[in-house]
């Protein structure tokens, strides 16, 4: 335990890490705070959109508050306001720590980029609400937004790549770092390709829809997944004190994800007016992704084996463990909606929403919550105030996400099965949509639970950033009564 050893080396190492933390403190906290705000906004919009889906008269006839505008605003706030923004914060901190490099210059550039990111997201979401949506999934924000987002992203990716370049890279350095580095390059690639193709190339026809579906899948697989896996690979050994079980498995997991991730997407339009090989390749890649997904899941399982008591006590490990658990779950759901046998049923149903939420919230966001619970005390110099709030955040999120994902999948199976059933030929589409009402009500309740937990998460985070956290050298742990947990436990 490092607290008991005070050798000059350790002391220097502690100071170096403290200096690194201090150098990235401002930008990272700015991103976290804004991200948490957008997350809360997104979950509130999620509640409203779900209610609008089963009770269209709710909130009256104002065009701004109709389902068709609330739903894309909800998803875009989740993806750009929360997901990418907070992902950048986690990436920056992990990359700085892993490479052992302080953020030397350009902090002001990062502030400016972060401010512009939030301005662009705000304008984009307002534009969706007033009816200027482009009606392309995850790219509903008008065309003027994406260059701003791109430049802001690159402003953050640039120093990370430099940190990587300057770093001393011992064996095993790559395990979490390469995911972060990959995300730095993949997101701009995906974002530029999709936006240039969809906004600048005329006459794409049906292929435009395919590119759009490709964009959604690759942002999940080549941005959200790498950031979350990178964080899990960093925090699980850090908290458990146990090395990553197998570097071989982690290599397979990374390279197969890197190779296969970009091939998915078109299977969303299987049987559609695209050249048949495009959906077929997407379907094959979507199923093959079970391999890297399973491998990473196995590796995390082997790493946490025998340390499950820490999952109960450490907030970080609890969230990261849950998020890492949902990586294989997301992969399995992706395989379900991607292959031609079950995909034909689940296509264009509520299951698609279920997949987006399990990937962005169940997997990515839960892992990132864990990262935030670890990072923020190191940046603010105070400890999380309330065990109860953290516990509340965890359980409401878990039950909320579980409800949304399960009901969306079941609703999708019912909806798709009915639509495809020859015996239901006399049922019109609206009747089948109305049959889903109970599931949508459950979704609204689940988003309300999540909103409740996220309001408190935002308040908790704001108190921390304001320096009003607990003044103590002991971490905030969820359980203290376990005999293996030492008073000065090393895993918060």
């Amino acid at each position: 335990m490092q607290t008991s050893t005070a050798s000059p080396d350790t002391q220097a190492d502690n100071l170096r890490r403290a200096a690194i933390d201090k150098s990235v403190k401002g930008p990272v906290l700015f991103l976290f705070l804004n991200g948490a705000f957008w997350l809360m906004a997104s979950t509130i919009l999620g509640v409203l959109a779900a209610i609008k889906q089963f009770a269209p008269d709710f909130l009256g006839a104002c065009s701004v508050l109709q389902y068709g505008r609330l739903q894309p605003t909800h998803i875009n706030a989740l993806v750009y306001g929360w997901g990418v923004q907070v992902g950048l914060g986690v990436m920056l901190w992990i990359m700085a720590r892993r490479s052992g490099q302080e953020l030397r210059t350009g902090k002001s550039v990062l502030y400016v980029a972060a401010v512009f990111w939030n301005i662009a997201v705000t304008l984009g979401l307002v534009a969706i609400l007033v009816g200027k949506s482009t009606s392309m999934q995850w790219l509903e924000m008008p065309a003027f937004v994406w260059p701003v987002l791109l430049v802001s992203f690159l402003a953050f990716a640039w120093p990370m790549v430099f940190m990587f370049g300057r770093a001393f890279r011992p064996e095993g350095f790559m395990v979490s770092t390469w995911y972060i580095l990959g995300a730095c390059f993949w997101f701009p690639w995906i974002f530029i390709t999709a936006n240039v193709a969809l906004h600048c190339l005329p006459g794409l026809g049906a292929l435009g829809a395919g590119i759009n579906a490709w964009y959604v899948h690759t942002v999940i697989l080549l941005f959200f997944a790498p950031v979350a896996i990178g964080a899990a690979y960093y925090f699980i050994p850090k908290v458990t004190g146990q090395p990553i079980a197998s570097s071989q498995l982690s290599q397979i997991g990374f390279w197969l994800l890197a190779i296969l991730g970009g091939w998915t997407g078109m299977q969303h339009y299987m049987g559609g007016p695209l050249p048949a090989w495009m959906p077929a390749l997407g379907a094959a890649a979507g199923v093959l992704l079970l391999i890297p997904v399973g491998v990473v899941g196995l590796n995390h399982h082997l790493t946490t084996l025998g340390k499950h008591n820490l999952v109960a006590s450490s907030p970080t490990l609890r969230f990261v463990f849950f998020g890492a658990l949902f990586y294989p779950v997301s992969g399995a759901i992706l395989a379900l909606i991607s292959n031609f046998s079950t995909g034909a049923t689940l296509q264009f149903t509520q299951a698609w929403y279920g997949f987006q939420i399990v990937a962005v919230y169940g997997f990515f966001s839960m892992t990132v919550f864990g990262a935030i619970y670890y990072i923020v005390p190191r940046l603010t110099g105070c400890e999380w105030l309330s065990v109860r709030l953290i516990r509340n955040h965890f359980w409401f999120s878990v039950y909320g996400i579980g409800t949304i994902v399960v009901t969306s999948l079941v609703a999708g199976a019912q909806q798709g099965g009915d639509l495809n059933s020859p015996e239901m030929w006399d049922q019109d589409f609206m009747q089948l949509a109305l049959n889903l009402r109970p599931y949508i009500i459950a979704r609204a309740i689940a988003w309300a639970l999540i909103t409740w937990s996220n309001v408190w998460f935002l308040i908790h985070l704001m108190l921390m950033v304001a320096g009003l956290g607990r003044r103590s050298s002991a971490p905030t742990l969820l359980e203290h009564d376990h005999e293996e947990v030492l008073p000065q436990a090393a895993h918060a």
Partner: protein
Amino acid sequence: MSAPSSFPNPDSNDLDRLHAAVKREKEDLDPGHEPAPMWVLFFFMLVAIVAGGQLGPMTGGFSFDVSNPFSIAKSGDPRPGGGDGAAAMDPFQTAMKKGASGYAVCGGCHQGSGMGLPGQYPPLAGSEWVLGGTERLIRVVQHGLVGQVTVKGQNYNFPGGMQGFGAGMSAGDFANVLTYIRNSWGNEAPMITKEMVEKFRADEKRTTQWTMAELEPFKDKNLPGEIPAGPGATSPAAK
């Protein structure tokens, strides 16, 4: 290392407390080298087989022209003759198939067997009117025939004669029926094409029925026009 002076906390000079979170961290560890378990490889194989199943029949032969996941490129459009005509069926076989259904109009009198009814309707099978000059055949069917007619040495004179059927049929259907009767029940003669019928209809504007005497000059004349290569060009053995 001095504490940052801008740090907001009043006790920011308390180094020990300030860096407590950093100090209690565990060090970064090298990853272990456990080999992947054996069952993982079997899992890989299973997944790869299922994934391969998504590719095999679904790719449409990696052609940019095929969007039907359940067809391979070679089979093309399932409609007879192919949707775009690129992979069209042999024109003679198509004409025979379509002509067979078109013949339902004729079969009422000439019978499905093409043998006609003795004393009333002349036969088509082996008839010199059918197998001979196509100029004469097409005139009979287009405009009709009235009065006495001699077929295979037998005389027929059905009251009112035969009506003209040309007005009610498109050039393509008309050509198909003619090709059909020239190649059924043992008949074998070159096919008649849609283009021939169109040209004939443009040239010949008669509206009344023909008589046997009037048709005598066309007895051995054939309609001008290209006959597509294949079994229809020669005398095929069409069944």
